[in-house]
């Protein structure tokens, strides 16, 4: 499913697409505390050694790089916002590009440096801006980061201001026509709106791409921002996992406790009656039919 800023699509569809279940305890680490404290030494080591996390991060990074739609034949210069321990950066290197990473957690960056990633990493707070000269980067990726920026981790933090500062400086640091792809875990459609509104105010155009919208597990949300429209590709990228129609499947039928007989299917009782008939035809001994034939017995039977 693709939602763009230009479409007049219904808000309800947006809500359904962006809904993330929040009943799991560790699904919202940004509620526990600021990222530089959450990603301490032990967490950084755990994170980087966890094969499941590695798999997910690598696949999201590759997808983000795909969405960047960079020219095939030449290496580009990419910014990795919230690069952490360099998992996403490695995907950029593998794709043949050069990169610089920013992150707020010293522990995560230490791990990155230990793992000898190719990109330079810078310890900084993205809410304070993106300290690079105009037109530096061909593209920007960010994996699982923006939701951290939406929380006020210190008393003086103002998420609006921080988002604005971030997007303004990011916009200017990008080459005209470049794309910024953010994989996010938005808490709610409201948070998503907060992000997209600030981005639009700072000059970005673009929209949201939702991969596998119908699967709770596989669903991934990418915010795709364009810094100025490139001449050739103004089209929004296609989302993955779509059937022919772009609708979310749901039913308004009431769920009854009983199993209803579907067409062509035989009920238990009918099947038993048929079986008995068959045996009678074979000349075998069959118990007499009564109103109790084929009734449901107690489980212990």
């Amino acid at each position: 499913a693709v939602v763009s800023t230009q479409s007049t699509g219904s808000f309800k569809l947006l809500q359904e697409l962006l809904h993330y279940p929040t009943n799991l305890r560790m699904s919202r680490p940004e509620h526990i505390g600021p990222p530089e404290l959450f990603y301490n030494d032990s967490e950084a080591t755990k994170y980087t050694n966890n094969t499941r996390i590695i798999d997910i991060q690598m696949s999201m990074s590759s997808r983000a790089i795909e969405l960047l739609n960079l020219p095939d034949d030449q290496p580009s210069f990419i910014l990795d916002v919230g690069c952490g321990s360099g998992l996403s950066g490695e995907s950029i290197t593998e794709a043949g590009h050069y990169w610089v990473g920013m992150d707020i957690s010293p522990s995560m960056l230490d791990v990155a440096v230990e793992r000898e990633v190719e990109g330079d990493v810078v310890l900084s707070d993205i809410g304070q801006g993106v300290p690079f000269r105009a037109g530096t980067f061909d593209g920007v990726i960010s994996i699982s980061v923006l939701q951290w920026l939406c929380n006020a981790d210190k008393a003086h933090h103002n998420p609006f201001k921080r988002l604005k500062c971030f997007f303004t400086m990011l916009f200017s640091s990008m080459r005209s026509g470049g794309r910024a792809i953010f994989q996010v875990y938005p808490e709610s459609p409201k948070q998503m709106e907060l992000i997209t509104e600030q981005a639009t105010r700072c000059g970005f155009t673009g929209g949201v791409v939702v991969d596998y919208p119908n699967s709770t597990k596989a669903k991934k949300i990418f915010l795709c921002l364009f810094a100025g429209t490139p001449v050739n590709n103004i089209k929004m990228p296609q989302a993955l996992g779509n059937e022919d129609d772009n609708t979310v499947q749901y039913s308004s039928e009431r769920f009854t406790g009983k199993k209803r007989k579907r067409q062509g299917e035989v009920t238990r009782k009918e099947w038993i009656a048929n079986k008995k008939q068959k045996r009678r035809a074979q000349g075998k001994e069959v118990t007499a039919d009564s109103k109790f034939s084929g009734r449901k017995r107690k489980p212990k039977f």
Partner: protein
Amino acid sequence: VVSTQSTGNYFIQTNLRMKLLTHNMLKSHCKGVVNGFPLKITSNQVDVKEIEFNPDFISRMLSRLDWTVFVQSANLLGVGEGLPDMLPEDQDFDDEDVLKKIHHALLEVEVIEGELECPETGRKFPISKGIPDLRLNEDEK
């Protein structure tokens, strides 16, 4: 630890960060700064790491570099030898030897320990283990 006689820089077996390419793009984001570029490097620890030479990338990045700053910083770190004073006007610049020298200074030399100084406020951002710490304090935002 091995030291070179000519530059007095130390070469160490670690593999860490801040290449001149990054330095050429970084600018200060202190409050009220008009043009925070360039940040002045001071360094007493530098490492050399071999990186695959990609002439396409180097030629493309040439137009984005601030050439004067690049040559200045390269000289400061002791790798400015052989770099032309002015960036060649010719768009299709492909003299491999010079490109290789540029590649070496741009991507293969890394500052491990040192400082970056904001040209307007004088604020010093430390570089430790190759990672520049650009976090601003409360009063600087």
